[in-house]
């Protein structure tokens, strides 16, 4: 039966998992190289802009280990589940054609170091389709980040119980979340969306069965180490909102969680990692108050320092270094329109805090977070 709405009509590739991707991806790269050269030479800036969009990432290197990993997951997907039958081949979406597949949404996955997407559909004679999207990311942290965009839904235990090292996480203790027909999964370097076009008890069972098959036998690495830097509470009685915590690398993702600026004023990108979360005084404990934390780990100290310089020049231009009469350092707390903001640079880490009710709250959080940084650096040498 056809799905109710043609949500993803524009697909480009359809190849089997077993090796064909290598054969197909080489000419695709060559194709884009030729098209890029022609467009740049013929269309000037217009061509460059279009090409930049499509060159969001290089065609992924398909290592034998990665191919085997994909094959294992593909082989574990049931051919039939309930009334549904799986398409026998995956549609392969790469960073080159992800915008054809999901114009306006591809940036999300590219922002998390996307490698490849395998798409399957389960169809049925009398039920709407079930769409299976398996996003392969560079690391487990990237796949975690995608799940952390939204902690809503019912937690689902799909696999084995957690290992000891995964106990007491900072983020919610969930690997899979289900709601209204959509199952989202973080499983090592894989993020999956399994979506029934029409939610029902029957389709829920099928969706969860597919989810169990995807994660079967896979590792469950810990949440990103950066999260450990976040204190669970802060002076005087603020508590971290783990259900609003988000791990990311792209300023576009930051803006979708907490809008800071239309530009990338913190120099975020694939070589940086960041976590943001609100802290709140829980309801019922007096005056309600909150602030926003943002912790960024850059690839090096010079990158962190340059990012701070960029941030100050744009966000606090009246007090940026070089402005007559002012010279903000690498560790400041200052009052702006929406409360107290603060920041401190420590090595490759930049800790920021916004909308604090007092300077003391801002200072206290930064001090606590940076103690966490010191611990993290000690652990990692």
């Amino acid at each position: 039966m056809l799905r109710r709405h043609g949500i993803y009509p524009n697909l480009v590739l359809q190849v089997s998992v077993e090796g064909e991707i290598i054969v197909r991806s080489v000419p695709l790269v060559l194709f884009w190289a030729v098209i890029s050269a022609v467009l740049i030479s013929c269309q000037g800036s217009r061509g460059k802009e279009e090409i930049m969009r499509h060159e969001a990432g290089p065609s992924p290197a398909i290592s034998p280990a990665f191919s085997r990993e994909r094959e294992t997951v593909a082989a574990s997907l049931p051919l039939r589940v309930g009334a549904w039958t799986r398409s026998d081949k995956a549609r392969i979406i790469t960073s080159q054609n992800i915008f054809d597949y999901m114009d306006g949404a591809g940036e999300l996955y590219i922002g998390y170091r996307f490698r490849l997407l395998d798409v399957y559909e389960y169809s049925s004679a009398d039920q709407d389709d079930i769409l299976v999207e398996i996003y392969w990311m560079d690391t487990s942290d990237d796949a975690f980040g995608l799940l952390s965009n939204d902690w809503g839904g019912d937690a689902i235990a799909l696999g084995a119980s957690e290992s000891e090292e995964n106990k007491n996480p900072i983020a919610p203790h969930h690997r899979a979340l289900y709601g209204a027909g959509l199952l989202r999964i973080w499983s090592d370097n894989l993020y999956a969306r399994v979506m029934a076009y029409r939610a029902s008890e029957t389709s829920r069972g099928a969706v969860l069965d597919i989810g169990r098959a995807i994660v079967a036998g896979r590792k469950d690495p810990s949440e990103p180490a950066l999260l450990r830097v976040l204190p669970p509470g802060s002076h005087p009685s603020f508590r971290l909102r783990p259900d609003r915590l988000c791990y990311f690398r792209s300023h576009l993702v930051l803006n979708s969680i907490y809008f800071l600026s239309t530009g990338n004023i913190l120099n975020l990108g694939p070589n940086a990692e960041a976590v943001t979360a609100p802290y709140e005084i829980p309801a019922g404990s007096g005056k309600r108050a909150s602030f926003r934390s943002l912790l960024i780990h850059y690839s090096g100290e010079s990158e962190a320092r340059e990012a701070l310089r960029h941030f100050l020049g744009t966000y606090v231009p009246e007090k940026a270094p070089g402005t007559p009469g002012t010279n903000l350092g690498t560790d400041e707390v200052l009052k702006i329109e929406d409360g107290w903001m603060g920041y401190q640079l420590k090595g490759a880490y930049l800790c920021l805090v916004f909308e604090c009710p007092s300077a003391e709250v801002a200072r206290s959080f930064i001090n606590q977070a940076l103690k966490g940084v010191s611990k993290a650096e000690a652990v990692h040498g």
Partner: protein
Amino acid sequence: MDEKHTTITRRDFVRGSVAAALGVSVPAKAWEQSTGRSSTVLLVRNEKALGAGNEVNVQVLRQMLGQTVLHVMGTKSEKEAWRSLANPEEIVGLVPTSHLNPTHRELIEAVRSALIEAGIPQNHIRMATGAEDDAKACSALIALPALKAHWLTGIGTVLKNYILFSGQPSRYHDANNSKLGEIWNMPHVKGKTRLVLVDALRPLCDKGPQPDPRYMWNYSGLIAGRDPVAVETVSLKIITEKRRALRGEPWPLSPPPLCVLAADQKYGLGTSNLSEIRIDRLGWSQDSLV
């Protein structure tokens, strides 16, 4: 230009200086001269528009569409209403959302059928969704976007619907999405839009454009008008109120939909001020959110 003068920050919102940051410099706008800064938007809803499986009840939808054009055009018959939108000599482009939570095809077909019944030759009606040439080939456009939040632009409905007409969609991504209104003023687009008709049958209030059924609901409505910014503003209000209802507290769109304010104050396409918009309502009123 120095980045601090072109980049809009959170502080601009708090200070109320977004308009200045957007570089507003248009002193007089054509639409203001003709309307005196007021617009009317029609909201038509019918709780039977969608069935238990979210399938469209075509008969009910056609009734809603008829009510819509009669009210917006102020004519005595539907045929007259459609004929006042376009004449048989014109090439009419239908501009639906074609991808990711697309416009319901039943709505597109209902509009097409109504135009044909009104005497517009079938070969004068075309889908105008692909590129700038589609707009160039049409003398009249009917915008048929689907209502959805968008993780890059806040809202991705009316103004974003013409992005492919620019020929350079990437120019309007990321920090540049506030410029979406610019496309409506391009020579091959300007003045051609006769009706903006938003498919609000089953909107998406978060995580768009990728579908997430947790944030989709049966609103069972059409939102229509001739001022694209006013229609977008009412659509935005519905999305915003739905988000508030879901969380039980304010849940503002992030990033903020800068394109709507800019379409008003920079590009002069219409009003984004709710106090300047008269909302007429027909049909089902429960949980209208606006």
